[in-house]
């Protein structure tokens, strides 16, 4: 026979407090809290096992799960296996009950001793249904963002005579070295901003030795309009290196390009790089 305390409702049905489903190891006792607690508090063991109390520092109101402490609140997600490639994650599901981001701590060593406790932090994000790592903070403090927009192109596909561009025109860099996100278009010489932000632009030009003696310049253009002259030189008739850098604020869809005077060497000594600073 199972002991229970039956509490009948005025309408006829009842609620019971019953003995455990399995036999306890010994005669045990649970002491109820001395208060009725506050809204959204959890019921937990006090410092004395078997004595229940309402938690003052852990609440859940149906929306926010909150841990509170006067000097140092901590929410801990713990994996107890001592091995490499173990993880503890905080998963965020912004819509439809599905995971959008995960913040994950991953063990690089087995954590068995102090000398073997190395971990990195990974931030994963979902794009078009696929979840992938977007940022990693290594134990050393180094940070990598593998999908940060960046482009590095060398050489030109512009029309040319004796390896020197023929006219003042937009430089179209032709050979891709790096084009994360494919935001540089090697067909028209435009880098179109995928996100609003501040971008770094670097330009290296080689003036061809076949170019006439004249002033040379290259302008960074934003949406087809001059933004800044990146480099200027008055030499000619000899190989001359010219370079320049700039930072520029772009909105989504804004594009940048480089417009330069004739005489630019079309080979790999001429290059352009663009990357998102943030």
């Amino acid at each position, binding site marked *: 026979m199972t002991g229970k305390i039956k509490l009948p409702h005025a309408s006829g049905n009842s609620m019971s407090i019953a003995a455990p489903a399995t036999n306890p190891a010994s005669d045990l006792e649970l002491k109820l809290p001395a208060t009725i607690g506050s809204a959204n508090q959890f019921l937990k063991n006090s410092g004395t096992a078997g004595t229940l109390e309402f938690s003052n520092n852990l609440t859940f109101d149906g929306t926010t799960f909150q841990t509170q402490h006067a000097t140092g609140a901590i929410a801990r997600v713990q994996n107890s296996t001592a091995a490499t490639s173990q993880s503890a994650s905080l998963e965020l599901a912004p819509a439809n009950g599905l995971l959008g981001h995960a913040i994950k701590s991953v063990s690089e060593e087995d954590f068995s001793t102090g000398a073997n406790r190395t971990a990195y932090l990974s931030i994963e994000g979902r794009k078009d249904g696929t979840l992938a790592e977007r940022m990693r903070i290594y134990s050393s403090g180094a940070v990598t963002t593998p999908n940060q927009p960046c482009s590095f192109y060398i050489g030109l596909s512009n029309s040319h005579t004796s390896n020197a561009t023929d006219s003042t025109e937009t430089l179209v860099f032709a050979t891709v070295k790096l084009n994360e996100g494919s935001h540089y278009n090697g067909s028209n010489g435009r880098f*179109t901003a995928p996100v609003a932000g501040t971008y770094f632009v670097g330009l290296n030009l080689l003036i061809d030795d076949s170019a006439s003696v004249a002033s040379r310049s290259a302008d960074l253009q934003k949406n087809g309009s001059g933004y800044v002259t990146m480099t200027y030189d008055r030499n000619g008739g000899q190989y001359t290196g010219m370079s320049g850098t700039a930072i520029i604020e772009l909105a989504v869809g804004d594009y940048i390009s480089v417009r330069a005077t004739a005489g630019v060497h079309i080979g790999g000594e001429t290059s352009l790089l663009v990357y998102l600073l943030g």
Partner: protein
Amino acid sequence: MDYTITLTDTEKKSMEFIAADVDDWITNVSTNRARLAKEEIIALNTAHCNANSIAIAVGEDAQVTQAYTLGVVKSAADRNKETEEK
């Protein structure tokens, strides 16, 4: 394919403030986004064909068509319709 958009006079003046050629700016946004989508479709189609021993169509246009024909990709409108029907 031609698409027509209508800007108010204020929107036109605002766009002229940021772009030397408004028509070119709008066209670049669209064609550049289409270029990125095309690259993504071709990559998905190539992966699908390689995984299923299917001959990959010749040329980018043909590969985009093949991706739709094989069901590797569906239009966003069709994906929305499928979601609504569930």
